[in-house]
């Protein structure tokens, strides 16, 4: 009984969810200009539930097993936080309600902003951006308006080649010109190169810390100094903050603007692709540029305010992804100061341990202690005709998820592995042992890897055909081209 919901719901009958209309209105027919059917399914509730439960069973997910996707921080999502975020006092609030009727929500936002300031050392946060990339874009807008306000015409943003794809994209969307600099042989930013490239046209230097190789930029102090000396701002992509909680506060080491991914570091679920939340924090001199409205606490309570005319304005229809704030705030309360520090300690220990195990069988371009993640490489298996994608697919057959592959681009056949702090030693041991088995299979019987996956709901899919002739909308049994 597979097939789309349209097939299952063809010619059936739906349940009755709302009462009869007690305001019959002939006038409505005048409005009803739409011709014909929309094309929505008509399906009974039992089959509908079966459809979605059936789809659910085809997904890998955190509650099934380890999710070692590098850069994604796939940690356990506490079930109690879902329960709390589902309270009617939160879910039923309209954003234009009288502030007196939303004091709890405003207080929560205020407390969350304060906690993020304390965690990062930034002076002020806006919760408005709804994803990491959205935070980056917001940060770029702040930089843009900051220089405009100062009357400086700076158009260039320097981005290391190891940066996440969203970084240069956000730069470009904001109207800046991205300029890539190469990382050095240790996988780090070379202050010398930076010094050469930076000049009066540079608005921002944008780095990820720890970087996408899982390395802490040893020269960060010098980098910050170089950037500031050039009159530019330092932007930190804080999506990897899971490594630094209670260890480094970016604001105190000179970072001017940063974003966080609450849907990574603060345990809010990823939802198969969102919703996320990407709050942006700035140091004092940039606070006036943050999006409005801001949450203000005064004698009488909390309120939203348009605090400064320097603001970049808005980046979201309302206040950002409030439902995500609730979960992140509950998580911070659960952890407390010591718990957050423990998160990063364990994330780092797990990563270094797993790196030691995995590097027995896979290449490692940048040895030495890593932070919360590391990048291995399947390049040693190329001799057997095996590529990293084969390793990834074979992992699926063992009931595990694959690491992030082919990223960062600067590592050939990259396998970017982030174990996160919630996985325990036995789980890492199991993952490492499967990685070992696969490396042996690669040598002895590479075909198994090429054929993988065989236990997943589908075998390898024809992506080329999809790209050539995309079938993006169900139009009947035939699909594409009809």
């Amino acid at each position, binding site marked *: 009984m597979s097939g789309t919901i349209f097939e299952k719901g063809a010619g059936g009958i739906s349940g009755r969810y709302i009462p009869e209309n007690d305001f019959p209105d002939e006038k409505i027919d005048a409005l009803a200009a739409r011709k014909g059917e929309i094309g929505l399914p008509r399906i009974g509730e039992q089959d509908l539930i079966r459809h979605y439960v059936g789809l659910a069973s085809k997904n890998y997910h955190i509650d099934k097993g380890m999710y070692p996707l590098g850069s994604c921080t796939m940690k356990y999502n506490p079930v109690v936080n879902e329960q709390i975020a589902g309270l009617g006092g939160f879910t039923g609030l309209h954003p*234009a309600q009288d502030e007196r009727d939303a004091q709890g929500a405003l207080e929560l936002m205020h407390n969350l902003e304060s906690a993020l300031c304390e965690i990062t050392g930034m002076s002020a946060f806006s919760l408005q951006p709804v994803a990491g990339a959205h935070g980056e874009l917001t940060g770029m807008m702040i930089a843009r308006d900051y220089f405009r306000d100062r009357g400086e015409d700076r158009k260039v943003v320097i981005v290391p080649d190891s940066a996440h794809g969203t970084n240069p994209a956000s730069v470009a969307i904001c109207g800046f010109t991205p300029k890539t600099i190469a990382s050095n042989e240790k996988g780090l930013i070379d202050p010398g190169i930076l010094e050469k490239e930076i000049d009066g046209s540079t608005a921002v230097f944008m780095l990820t810390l720890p970087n996408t190789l899982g390395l802490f930029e040893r020269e960060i102090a010098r980098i910050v100094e170089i950037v500031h000396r050039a009159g530019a701002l330092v932007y930190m992509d804080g999506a990897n903050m899971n490594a630094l909680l209670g260890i480094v506060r970016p604001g105190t080491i000179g970072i001017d603007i940063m974003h966080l991914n609450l849907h990574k570091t603060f345990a809010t679920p990823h939802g198969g692709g*969102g919703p996320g939340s990407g709050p942006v924090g700035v140091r004092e001199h940039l606070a006036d540029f943050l999006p409005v409205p801001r949450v203000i606490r005064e004698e009488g309570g909390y309120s939203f305010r348009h605090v400064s005319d320097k603001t970049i304005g808005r980046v979201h229809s309302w206040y950002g992804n409030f439902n995500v704030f609730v979960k992140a705030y509950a998580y911070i309360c659960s952890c407390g100061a010591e718990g957050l520090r423990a998160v990063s300690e364990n994330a780092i220990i797990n990563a270094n341990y797993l790196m030691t195990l995995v590097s027995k069988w896979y290449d490692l371009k940048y040895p030495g202690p890593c932070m919360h993640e590391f990048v291995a490489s399947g390049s040693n298996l190329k001799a057997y005709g095996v590529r990293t994608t084969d390793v990834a697919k074979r992992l699926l057959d063992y009931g595990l998820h694959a690491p992030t592959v082919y990223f960062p681009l600067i590592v050939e056949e990259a396998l970017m592995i982030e174990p996160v702090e919630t996985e325990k030693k036995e789980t890492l041991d199991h993952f490492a042992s499967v990685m070992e088995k696969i490396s042996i299979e690669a040598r002895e019987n590479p075909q198994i890897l090429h054929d993988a996956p065989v236990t997943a709901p589908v075998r390898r899919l024809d992506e080329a055909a999809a790209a050539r002739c995309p079938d993006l909308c169900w139009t009947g049994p035939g699909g594409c081209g009809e």
Partner: protein
Amino acid sequence: MSYIQNTDSDRKEMLRVAGASSFEQLLEPVDPALRVKGGLKLGRPMSESEVLSHVGAMASRNRPAGSAASFLGGGIYDRFIPATVRYVLSRSEFYTSYTPYQAEVSQGTLQAIYEYQSMIAKLTAMDAANASMYDAATALAEAMLMACSIKRADRILVPAAMSVRVRAVLESYAAGRGIRIEEIPWTDEGTMDHDKAGELLSEKAAALVVASPNYFGMIEDAAGLSELAHSKGALLVALVDPVSLALLSPPGEYGADIAVGEGQSLGIPQNFGGPLLGFMATRSELIRKCPGRLISATTDIEGKRGYVMTLQTREQHIRREKATSNICTNEGLCALSAAVYLSTMGEDGFREVARQSAAKSHALYRLLSEVEGVVLPFGENFFQEFVVRMPGSSESFIEEARGAGILAGIPISGDYPLLGGDAILVAVTEKRTRAEIERYRDIAAGKGGAL
């Protein structure tokens, strides 16, 4: 409450294997001078029950829709959400999974999003929709960038009768790119001034944005505006309400090039305004210029139907600064809500939601039109929302209604001074009852105190 599972002895052993004598040793790359001294100034860890009461108390310091009859709209609506939606969304297979990078073990998410795309395409009568955007405002901003890139132009025309918040987001996105946004005023009927639009279109514009229903709830002559825009070489971008499309002519029927809108009405709780669901649909020819994720059906090596992310060369993780957009994490779970909502309500149930919203809002409109002193500036050509001026001050009216358990509407004259007086925007969804609607009228008529 800690979610860490390693014990002290686990950690000791792991450090040993990693060749470190202590955790501090792993921190060697971090200059001690840069490290936090003395720990973070946050509270002590709370147990689960403490978190529940601490955050639960905040929830109870709000007064949500359930405890009052909400006539608030302006993009976010109090609608009935069938239990199936929460049930499906509470399955961790959906909510704890990542973006479907490994397609073979993500068919659940992929197929659900494919079905969502299909439903949005059908609803808008466009060829295809993407996998979701952040909200209507950013979807419109992305449509603006897309139109400017297609038309190689840096000017777009928008209605003055548009949400000021959406407008503000457009400005933020436009500013760095040198895009000019120009406004077309509304007429006495509260709809776009066609003459003025024609005039402004004579200078090259990438797109004309039509919001229908517009922010005042009024239905535009979208077909006429579409013809006008196309005749002047501009794209037509339609900003639409998805529920209205069950009744009104959809963008695909009047030739829109891009349709965007806010999907919160489709099974997503109000949640103080987030997460929302921006949707975007377009014509086949433009799909490769479209921002955001796209899911396509395909087959596996055994010929079995399956789903993959496609046209990823438009996306930032492949194309970096040349991407059509920087969007990565989107609103996947909200898209799933919309799919479950639409398939639960079904063709007939969803139409009924639209019909009842229209019928009930028109009923309130008529009741108010009989109250002395009430001004309804724009007439009856609205879908489910309208502008009204109360006899007294709107502030005191809203305050009185609030006391009677009614959230009466959004005051909007501050944002739209041209409206004059003390206007409020009133929305009536299918959830409102006859009793609530009549009580609203009674309060407007000064007879509310008795309740």
